[in-house]
């Protein structure tokens, strides 16, 4: 018996082909949203079937189409950094892990033995964020923000330094404004960032930057993880 008869794979094929309707369609969509393995099976089928479309003869598109596309690119380019996080969200957890390994990063779940325990989240640190690989990936760091002391503590969960690179913490304002650097963070133990304007809303993100941090004041490297800032 081959895996071909697996009912879940058949359901993935039906969803990719687009023949489901009603209740089975709703169920399959919910499964694709919740189960990365199932979502990957759907993608595999979409790509298998897409080869059918490749058999279609090309037809020259009217000249006006490209300028119309080009004119619609600008807003995306301006907010590219944040969009790239959306891109990451669209990936399966597995492919994110592969991408991160490709960057030379180990997302190792086990805590470092010599790392001190994370500082307790108390009334003195009312805002927290868990920075994780997007799309339900592993947690990379826990961040607490103390608005009274204007102090941010970043406790790595699974961050690794890379040669000639720095890890940089950013706040992305909830109003969609430009990300603001909060400083560099260490992978080997907690980093305390003091004397900064402590954010209370939006999301925190960690990016991989050239040694010493982003040269431009805006994130330039890949986004390793993001997490919403919430009241602890």
């Amino acid at each position, binding site marked *: 018996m*081959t895996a*071909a*008869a697996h009912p879940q*794979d*058949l359901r993935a*094929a*039906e969803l990719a*082909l*687009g*023949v*489901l*309707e009603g209740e089975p369609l709703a169920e399959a969509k919910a499964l694709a949203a919740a189960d990365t393995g199932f979502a990957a099976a759907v*993608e*595999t*089928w*979409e*790509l*298998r*079937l*897409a*080869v*059918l*479309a*490749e*058999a*279609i*003869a*090309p*037809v*020259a*598109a*009217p000249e*006006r*189409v*490209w300028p*119309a*596309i*080009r004119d*619609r*690119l600008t807003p*995306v*380019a301006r907010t*590219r950094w944040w*969009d*790239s996080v*959306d*891109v*990451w969200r*669209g*990936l399966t957890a597995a*492919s994110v892990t592969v991408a991160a390994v490709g960057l030379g990063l180990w997302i190792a779940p086990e805590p470092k033995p010599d790392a001190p325990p994370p500082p307790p989240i108390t009334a003195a640190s009312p805002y927290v964020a868990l920075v994780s690989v997007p799309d339900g990936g592993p947690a990379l760091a826990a961040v607490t923000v103390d608005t009274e002391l204007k102090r941010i503590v970043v406790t790595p969960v699974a961050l690794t330094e890379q040669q000639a690179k720095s890890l940089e913490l950013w706040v992305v304002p909830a109003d969609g404004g430009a990300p603001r650097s909060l400083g560099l963070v260490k992978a080997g133990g907690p980093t305390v960032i003091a004397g900064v304007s402590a954010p209370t809303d939006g999301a925190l993100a960690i990016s991989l930057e050239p040694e010493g941090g982003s040269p431009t004041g805006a994130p330039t490297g890949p986004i390793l993880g993001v997490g919403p800032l919430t009241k602890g």
Partner: protein
Amino acid sequence: MSIDLDRERLRRHLKAVAQGDPSALRELYRATSGKLFGVCLRILRDEGEAEEVLQEVYLTVWKRAGSYEPTKASPVTWLAAIARNRAIDRLRASGARVLSRSGPLEGAAEIADASPDSEAQALQGEEARRLGQCLEGLDPNQAGLIRRAFFGGLSYSDLAQAAGRPLGTVKTWIRKGLMNLKVCLES
């Protein structure tokens, strides 16, 4: 028209697009828009709608190029999957026209017009040839319904109506066809 389907070059373009390079998107568009416009037209059968969907396809590529994985599919296959999905979404959004535009009679013609022979000839590349061969090996009823569903965005009950067959039969044919296809592709 210059259709450049060179895989490596397209991969490089996609990589540059993922890094936000608009000139790479321009190159990608130059090399692949004919192919994708053909896909959109085939599914939508309306130039205006196909043009709009073609724009959406490249805007999607602009945002999602970073998620392209070379190990899973060739760039053209990945792009064709986006074009097909976008076109089907548009077709469904326009609702009732799907069936009024392609009723039962045209359904039969459609199965015939994408005959396995012409498809196998038109398909390029190793995976494509393989799929062509596997489709050719399927029961014609199964293969015909899969094509009809793929290009027409039809659900099981739409297909049953279009083909004038009982719903249960249509489901069985499609499911058998899909599973036979998988066995063939993985053999």
